[in-house]
């Protein structure tokens, strides 16, 4: 069982507050681009190059905003990238401490099983497709659930409200269509 919403909400709010107090608002989805860039630059070192006053890239997206992304790709040991790696560490430790995720739940979660059966291949294909749409959409929007919805609305950013409206306008109907049976 997860924490009840009162304790959980306070803790989560505290983490978002600490981030903005000590460094800057939390965001995640950019780091998928940075990891892509690190991998692609390893294959093709011409992708990201150093210039007289910073970094640039042959890819227009990586070169935008004065090569901000190109710079992060060239220096992966930066705050935002390490932050996401540390999230994985925190998630791993927390899950281990409460006994870990076991059995069939590791590959096909209960709600999916109740609606679509227990084929891992089908679930993995859906997760892959979902991941593609989520990250394409997040990059188009310029942020994800963390950066736009949580950090954005917390700061009263207009963009955060626009993003949340779009996300729930699609997520609720899609979920109602897909998950008719309760687990």
């Amino acid at each position, binding site marked *: 069982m997860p*924490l009840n*919403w*009162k304790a*959980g*909400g306070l803790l*989560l*709010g*505290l*983490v978002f*507050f*600490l981030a*903005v*107090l000590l460094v800057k*608002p939390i965001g995640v*989805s950019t780091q998928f681009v940075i990891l892509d860039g690190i991998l692609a630059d390893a294959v093709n070192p011409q992708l990201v190059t150093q210039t007289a006053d910073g970094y640039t890239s042959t890819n227009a997206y*990586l070169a935008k905003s004065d090569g901000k992304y190109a710079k992060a790709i060239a220096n992966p*040991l930066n705050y*935002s990238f*390490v932050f996401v*790696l540390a*999230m994985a560490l*925190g*998630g791993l*430790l*927390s*899950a281990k401490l409460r006994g*870990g*995720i076991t059995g069939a739940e590791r*590959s096909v*979660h209960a*709600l999916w099983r109740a609606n679509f059966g227990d084929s*891992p291949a089908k679930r993995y294909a859906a*997760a892959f497709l*979902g*991941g593609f*749409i*989520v*990250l*394409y*959409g997040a990059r*188009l*929007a*310029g942020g*994800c659930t*963390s950066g736009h919805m949580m950090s954005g609305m*917390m700061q009263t*950013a*207009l*963009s955060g409200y626009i*993003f949340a409206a*779009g*996300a*729930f306008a*699609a*997520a*609720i109907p*899609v*979920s*109602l269509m897909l998950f*008719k049976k309760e687990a």
Partner: protein
Amino acid sequence: MTTILLAIVIGAAFGAVLDRIGASNPNYIGKMLNLTDLNLAKTILLAIGTGSVLMFGGQMAGLVDVGHMSVKAAYAGVFIGGLMLGAGWALAGYCPGTGVVAAASGRKDALFFIAGGLVGAAAYMVTYPAWKASGLLNSFAGGKVTLGTVPGAGYDGLTALPGDLLGIVLGLGFIALAFALPERLLPQKPAAQPAE
């Protein structure tokens, strides 16, 4: 080095909290989005409210550096991208951050989510010039704006209302909404009755 240390501490705390509130569990995301268990929605609303009240309250007390705010631009693509993210979020049960945490906590399907995400992000990198040319990335309503005008933040306000006070009021509104929201919106389906 200090910033890397902060990245590790705050990042790990964020990952652990996402795990403990059930946000990286696709069952809870699914139950929130199909409106049968809104506990996670209440958690998120309370978190946004708490963060907002602490941040703007801290700013007004002079304890929080206004310069740490980072407001993203508003443009049509924010809404279109939001729609896409929402659809994928419902299908997969993961968003970028919770997918990473879920994979680390031992969920194998989340590894496929991350793989799909890396391909999706790469697809956006390649198609970015077309979006740029379409004009859908052009800022509207002032772009990087907050709803009120936050003193010293360097961002324009959509309105002239004092942005820090408005932030506290809205934060309290989110907290009130967290309390007001019922635990489920869709009525429970009647359990199948055994045949007489």
